């Protein structure tokens, strides 16, 4: 089929918007100054550019620019938030509550803190991916210092009841942190509106460059502080040292500005395309949509094609179409997606899942082509699949004693 390449993996990363790169370029060359150089125009220009970007980002969040700390990305922001709170509020307590479906940047950080005396509760989710609010409230104790819940899940797109969680945290005087990487720039994410006190996100999920992100840290009611995890110079109000990535930050600012202007129409267009894709697949047999379909990002669908393995399926079209799968074969650890397993899917459906995440540059033609190609791939793989044959013959697969290796 030649050169055509269709990218439907925007949750993994997004291409830069050309307008973002245009804004960045001068800061690699003629305006290359260090924003901390106080004594000459190169430094002043760089500082001005950073300040402007800070305002652009703050605007997107409905926040004050003093509440934005620039980092190298969401993973660093997650680490700074969780470890930073743990260090800063250690006299208040050591208990953190988070959720089993969080990104590894949160889970691994919590794991690490457990070795340093933290007590962590990992909440389960319901089959649709949402947490149980009563369970959350019941888990809060006098020594709880932080609740960490992601705004939108990277694999399923499921959006948690943020306002309700915020209310519970407010009631019990606990800080609320959200890894909002998959939501910022795509749907409205105003932390103050929902009671989020600290929020992490990155540029490369919103058509900005990789290697730059930010952490929102509330300055007023409550005034939150996080202990720096990167020391050396006291940049970013002493919360994150290190020479600022000026071009990256300019890019993040521009991406935020564009998102503010175009987010709503992007979401409307993409949700229509996503629904078209989903409807197309629903015409097939043994198809399962994973995650709550109402409280979900507009551009994502995670679908299991029963009796077909994800990596094999992707091989039928991956020269032309980029997607992700929850199959063990696609992960470095050879474990199936822990998010899908937490939803109670069962490993076989986790192995059979594909994640479609559309983006600003996805066209309707892309979606139409992908729908046909994936359907064709599924049918081809089902022709090769012994368990599809058994299912068609009416064999109850749950009753088979598999000779596992």
């Amino acid at each position, binding site marked *: 089929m030649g050169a055509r390449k269709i990218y439907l993996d925007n949750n993994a990363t997004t291409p830069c918007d050309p307008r973002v790169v245009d804004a960045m370029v001068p800061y690699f060359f003629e305006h290359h100054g260090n924003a901390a150089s106080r004594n000459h125009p190169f430094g002043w220009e760089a500082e001005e550019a950073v300040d402007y970007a800070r305002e652009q980002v703050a605007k997107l969040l409905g926040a004050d620019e003093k509440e934005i700390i620039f980092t190298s990305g969401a993973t660093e922001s997650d680490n700074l938030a969780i470890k930073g709170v743990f260090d800063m509020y250690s006299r208040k307590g050591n208990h953190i509550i988070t959720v089993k479906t969080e990104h590894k940047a949160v889970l691994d950080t919590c794991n690490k803190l457990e070795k340093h005396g933290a007590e962590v509760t990992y909440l389960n989710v319901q089959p649709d991916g949402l947490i149980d609010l009563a369970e959350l409230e019941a888990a809060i104790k006098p020594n709880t210092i932080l609740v960490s819940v992601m705004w939108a899940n990277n694999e399923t797109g499921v959006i948690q009841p943020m306002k309700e969680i915020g209310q519970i945290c407010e009631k019990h005087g606990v800080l609320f942190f959200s890894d909002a990487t998959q939501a910022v720039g795509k749907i409205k994410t105003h932390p103050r509106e929902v009671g989020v006190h600290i929020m992490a996100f990155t540029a490369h999920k919103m058509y900005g460059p990789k290697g730059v992100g930010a952490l929102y840290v509330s300055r007023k009611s409550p005034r939150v502080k996080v202990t720096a995890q990167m020391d050396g110079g006291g940049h970013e109000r002493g919360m994150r040292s290190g020479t600022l990535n000026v071009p990256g930050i300019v890019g993040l600012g521009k991406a935020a500005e564009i998102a503010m202007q175009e987010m709503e129409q992007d979401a409307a267009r993409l949700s229509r395309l996503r629904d078209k894709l989903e409807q197309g697949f629903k015409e097939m047999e043994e198809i399962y949509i994973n995650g709550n379909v109402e409280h979900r990002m507009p551009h994502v669908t995670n679908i299991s094609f029963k009796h077909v*393995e994800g990596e*094999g399926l992707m091989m039928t079209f991956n020269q032309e179409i980029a997607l992700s799968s929850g199959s063990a074969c696609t992960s470095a650890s*050879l474990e199936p997606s822990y998010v899908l397993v937490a939803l109670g899917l069962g490993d076989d459906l986790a192995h059979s899942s594909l994640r479609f995440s559309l983006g600003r540059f996805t066209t309707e033609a892309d979606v139409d082509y992908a729908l046909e190609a994936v359907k064709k791939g599924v049918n081809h793989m089902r022709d090769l699949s012994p368990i599809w044959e058994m299912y068609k013959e009416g064999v109850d697969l749950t009753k088979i004693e*598999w000779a596992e*290796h």
Partner: protein
Amino acid sequence: MAYSNKVLEHFQNPRNVGTLDKSKKNVGTGLVGAPECGDVMRLQIEVDEATGVIQDAKFKTFGCGSAIASSSLATEWLKGKSVEDAMKIDNMDIVEELALPPVKIHCSVLAEDAIKAAIADYKQKNGVEVASEATA
């Protein structure tokens, strides 16, 4: 992770996909793996009872490209071999032929298991003693 050309070739043109009549006395069926593991292979052999030579072999696999390639290759190798020679097929032969990376070696192991399971089933149906680890 890039696939080897051989794996791609088998994946795009799998050999001997299909189903043999498992009720026939000279057909042996091996079903190995489990859906929860993301790998299920069904390998079948049809043996000429007079000569003990495998005349036909068919497979179906639920699994990744390397798993499909491994089982497809297995059926190719089985055809024309005696049952005894077929028992000697080792998973590392498959790894070498397909240039499987370390993370995919288990696919070749499953294919070897499938071969041995099919042979064990055939032998059992024909009243021949079966070594106990063949059906593990």
